[in-house]
């Protein structure tokens, strides 16, 4: 019963995406490549090698993971609040047999789809630049999918809990951007002072970056792979539970 209803929610998102996909091209495909050129190629010329690989190749998995991260966070803010507040799409679904859990799962499935397309395109472009050095590279795709849910689910819970969209500006500035900058995307976390390093350890992005780096470069991960995966699963699981709970509350009385 639960499965097909979540699929109906996913279907709605896909029908909408068919109409809006051009608008997502810049953010999802062009920006990551620009980032790679500016930092990877431009700054990379001064860096030389990190952990025995070129700087470009070193940041590819980082930019890859942060692409999924940004889709996960960004697409769980205004669109989710909007479907509660302005479109009232979730209220429309609530009047049918679609359950809050279906709404959350359907949305997450859509975001995974979005992230996987963006990340796959990026991986191919990065490979053309010589930024991929291991046959394990495709393993970065499921990691990106998991990361997407690990951040999208808690942010969805947040979006379902607020009334005013100006909280999102704070989320972007105090969570998303710091997380992108201090999660081992551009430089190893070990360079940070001990205290700041813990911010990275707490960020799901860092765990995903470690896993992606292992995938595209064959480098060892900081912690055992199982620990990184477990942390992402934990974020995803807790986030999903929170999101479903907040949907129930908001669609209740």
């Amino acid at each position: 019963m639960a499965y097909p209803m979540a699929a109906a929610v996913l279907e709605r998102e896909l029908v909408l995406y068919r109409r809006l996909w051009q608008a997502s091209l810049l953010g999802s495909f062009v920006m990551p490549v620009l980032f790679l050129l500016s930092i990877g190629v431009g700054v990379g010329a001064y860096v030389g090698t990190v952990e025995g690989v070129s700087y470009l190749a070193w940041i590819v998995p980082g930019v890859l993971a942060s692409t999924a991260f940004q889709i996960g966070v960004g697409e769980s803010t205004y669109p989710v609040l909007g479907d509660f507040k302005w479109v009232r799409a979730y209220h429309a679904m609530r009047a049918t047999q679609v359950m809050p859990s279906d709404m959350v799962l359907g949305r997450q499935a859509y975001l995974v789809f979005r992230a996987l397309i963006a990340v796959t395109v990026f991986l191919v472009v990065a490979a053309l630049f010589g930024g991929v050095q291991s046959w394990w590279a495709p393993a970065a795709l499921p990691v990106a999918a998991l990361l997407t849910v690990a951040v999208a689910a808690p942010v969805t819970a947040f979006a379902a809990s607020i009334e005013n969209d100006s909280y999102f500006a704070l989320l972007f500035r105090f969570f998303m951007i710091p997380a992108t900058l201090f999660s081992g995307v551009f430089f190893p976390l070990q360079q940070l002072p001990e205290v700041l390093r813990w911010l990275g350890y707490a960020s799901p992005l860092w765990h995903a970056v470690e896993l992606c780096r292992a995938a595209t470069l064959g480098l060892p991960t900081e912690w055992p792979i199982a620990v990184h995966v477990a942390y992402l699963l934990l974020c995803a699981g807790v986030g999903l539970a929170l999101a479903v709970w907040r949907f129930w509350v908001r669609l209740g009385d």
Partner: protein
Amino acid sequence: MVTASIAANIAARVEPSRVAAVVARNVGALRSGPAYWVVLVSGFFEPLLYLLSIGVGVGALVGDLTVDGQTMSYAQFVAPAMLAVSAMSGALAETTYNFFFKLKYMKTFEAVLATPVRPMEVAVGELLWSVVRGGLYTVIFLGIMVAFGLATPLGALAALPAAMLVGLSFGALGMAVSTLMRGWQDFDLLTTGQFALFLFSGTFSPVQNYPAGVEILIQLTPLYHAVELVRGLAIGVIGPGLLVNVAYLLAMVAASLWFASRRLERLLLE
């Protein structure tokens, strides 16, 4: 010469007290809620975080850098660029999003124009406000640079007016662009454009490294001149090249203002 005559033309059409009234409206709006304050203040964190992450974090990987015969740490190289970016994005945020919102939805300007205030005065007032806001970011950021040893106090003092000019020129540009916006979807393009400038204007690595064609292309864009100017003054590499940067930015102010006021007149007074 052209710049001067346009400036004179603009000055002739502007009454300072009415401009002040437009600025005062913005200051008044500040008190209307905490959200605007928070967004205003937090806008300054972004370049600071980039400075810490790229300048200090990546800087440790890069080591020292030699540009134009001058050797400096990577953080010293990146910091002035972040200052210019901060001035740019502060001013743009005010004159694009907020300006567009007021123009299209709040009808603030229509209300203002029902009074003796003229479109050009609205434009100049809005612009001055964006410069005030940008200046706020600039002062804080320069303080941080001095504290981190990334600029001498003298260099910081010299960079302050330069950064203000950057804010002024991007504020004017943003306003001109806003009058062309059809809807929110156009802002995605603007954001991407802004992001591309941010990445390639000699911010993170010297433009001399880019292929020749790309380098010339970058030298035509505004943030490049802003970064060059602020960096030159902050690290004390003074040369005639800086005059070119200043002229570029001044011309941008004049051209944008002229364009914006014409568009505003057409949009609001038809």
